[in-house]
């Protein structure tokens, strides 16, 4: 008997709860009873039970809403993982007894969904993928998504032994395989999960890919399915009440400096930076003044943040004296610290990439975010559509244009463009600007653009005005043949 106890030990110490049904059988005195290992124990009584929440709204919810729901679901269990775009997985085995079993816990979860006004479909199964498949296929099984907590319809499989049997009638589409694979399976008459599970493994892997075979294995719990745990991102939020009212910008920044120092420590302890920082200044009786700082790269340095915030505050008009101020960070972003440079920027071998984001932030803080931008060339023959504003991020330049192997596809263009063509006066059918314009060379015809509704039909000329400035003008091809100035050769 002694060695029997030893053999049973692993079963008892596993947190996976020994199956009570098995206990009398093992005690019945049969010495030839097979040794029960950890994996077998897990098969007999599922170690995990997953609740899948499938948000059944017609359009997938925003990642932000999914995260909000995930944060609320953490009330029910610490093991929550997101399955974008529209699903949420909760491991509920450990918290079943706290919420009154599967039914009670599902009601709680449905309540959370209805509070956020997200119709949802819930399903419980021993593997995450099975729960997801059940929840996704729920509508086809005749269950409608619940809108209120009371009408929560839950598809439940708690027994691993029943898993394959209950999953078998589900359509394969619930696994979200590529449409091409589904079509090929449908062609050989395989439309449900059960039919797919009956196919020979080797042939299935060869014809439909090992990824799909692994999905099936995870679905029925043959291999374990690891899920990333969702964690709510921490935010910084501090408030400071003032004992006197402030009106001066400089004094305001001095009051904010300790808060910023706290923010700096908070960020440095987490190796994170912020991309947005909001400063709220509260007044007596009117809504607070908000000042939002948006950054190009994650920043954690209190001094730099103070400089940038100071620029923004200086541009701010305070409607009333300030009574309290509050600092709120946006989501934290992990920050990789760059190593310092041996050379100074601009020196031999010295780079500048590390300095540029700070410069751009400083400029944007004072001039506004849209005042600082980069340029991008678009392959389009219409001048207005041939360029775009882009984020000023240092990228490697494309291959040089204008070289022999990549000739410039369009005619000669001026380096300056008017945002909107300006109409020119005319006399005897010729344009005038500070006197008559002299047209040089031949016209370049630029027309069509029906595909996006900005159709043009113009004849472009290079013109010289009385003072010697070279202009790029065009004449409309349609009546009344007006002349416009569109660019300047600098």
């Amino acid at each position: 008997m002694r060695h029997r106890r030893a053999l049973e030990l692993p079963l008892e110490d596993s947190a996976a709860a020994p199956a009570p049904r098995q206990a009398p059988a093992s005690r019945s005195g049969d010495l030839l009873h097979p040794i029960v290992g950890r994996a077998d124990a897990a098969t007999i009584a599922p170690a995990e039970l997953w609740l899948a929440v499938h948000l059944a709204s017609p359009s997938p919810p925003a990642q932000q809403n999914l995260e909000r729901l995930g944060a609320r679901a953490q009330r029910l269990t610490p093991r929550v993982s997101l399955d974008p775009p529209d699903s949420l997985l909760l491991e509920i085995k450990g918290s079943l007894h706290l919420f009154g079993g599967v039914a009670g816990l599902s009601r709680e979860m449905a309540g959370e969904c209805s509070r956020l006004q997200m119709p949802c479909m819930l399903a419980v199964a021993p593997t995450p993928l099975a729960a997801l498949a059940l929840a996704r296929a729920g509508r086809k099984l005749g269950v409608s998504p619940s809108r209120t907590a009371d009408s929560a319809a839950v598809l439940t499989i708690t027994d691993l032994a029943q898993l394959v049997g209950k999953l078998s009638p589900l359509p394969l589409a619930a696994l979200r395989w590529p449409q091409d694979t589904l079509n090929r399976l449908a062609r050989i008459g395989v439309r449900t999960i059960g039919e797919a599970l009956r196919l020979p493994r080797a042939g299935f892997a060869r014809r439909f890919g090992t990824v799909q075979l692994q999905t099936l294995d995870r679905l029925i719990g043959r291999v374990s399915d690891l899920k990333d745990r969702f964690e709510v991102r921490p935010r910084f939020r501090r408030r400071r009440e003032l004992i006197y009212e402030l009106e001066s910008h400089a004094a305001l920044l001095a009051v904010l400096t300790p808060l910023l120092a706290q923010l700096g420590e908070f960020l440095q302890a987490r190796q994170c930076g912020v991309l947005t920082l909001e400063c709220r200044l509260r007044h007596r009786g009117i809504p607070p003044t908000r000042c939002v700082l948006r950054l190009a790269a994650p920043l954690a340095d209190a001094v730099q943040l103070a400089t940038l915030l100071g620029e923004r505050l200086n541009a701010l008009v305070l409607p009333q004296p300030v009574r309290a101020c509050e600092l709120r960070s946006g989501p934290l972003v992990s920050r990789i610290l760059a190593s310092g440079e041996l050379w100074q920027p601009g020196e031999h071998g010295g780079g500048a990439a590390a300095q540029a984001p700070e410069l751009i932030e400083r400029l944007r803080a004072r001039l506004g975010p849209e005042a600082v931008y980069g340029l991008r060339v678009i392959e389009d023959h219409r001048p207005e559509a041939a360029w775009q504003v882009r984020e000023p991020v240092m990228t490697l330049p494309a291959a040089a244009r204008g070289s022999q192997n990549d000739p410039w596809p369009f005619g000669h263009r001026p380096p300056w463009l008017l945002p909107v063509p300006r109409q020119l006066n005319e006399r005897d059918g010729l344009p005038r600007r500070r006197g008559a314009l002299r047209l040089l060379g031949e016209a370049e015809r630029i027309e069509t653009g029906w595909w996006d509704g900005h159709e043009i039909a113009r004849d472009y000329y290079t013109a010289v005005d009385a003072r010697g400035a070279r202009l790029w003008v065009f004449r409309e091809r349609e009546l009344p043949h007006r002349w416009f100035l569109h660019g300047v050769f600098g």
Partner: protein
Amino acid sequence: MARDLSRLLEHPAIWRGRSAARTRTLSTGFPALDEGLPGGGWPHTGLIEILPSCFGVGELSLLLPALAAMTRRPEARWCAWVAPPLQPFAPALAECGVAPERILVVNARRKDAKGKSALWAFEQMLRSGACDIALAWLRNALPRQIRRLHLAAEQGATLGVLFRPRETARESSPAALRIAVEPAAPGVRVTLLKSRGGARSAIELPAR
């Protein structure tokens, strides 16, 4: 002793009236202009002023070959355009070989006192060391402000180019190089108003 003295005089910060200062320069892409400019091209750092007789006579085309060479280097920094009077047209710049990826446009045309924000942005650009070259279009700039910009450009190892109207040629300026640009029959005529040992006569450049 004489050799030591001549070596000392080779220092880039020292220049003597008649001889051209020894500075690191960048070819302008126009052989005639290279010949006329001290050191054979645009300086690498410092502030230069370009005074066109009227906007659009060809003052920007003087710089385009140098901009192309600068932005195409693998270690290139930003090429900043501060308060440009019109929208820089990316396809035309790409056509001239300038890499649009390196261009940073800063619009500071807000209604503030005497272009103060443009002046501030230009100084930030020059001082930061994040730019190879910074172009700015300023109407009003006092000599002491230009002096400040020049020092900022030297600190950041940046070439600052200041475009101002021709009328400002009468005002004194601490810029290292002042160039007047006016239209000539086929192209442009460049006159060095102030330089450290450059050509005295006007330089005629062909049209591009």
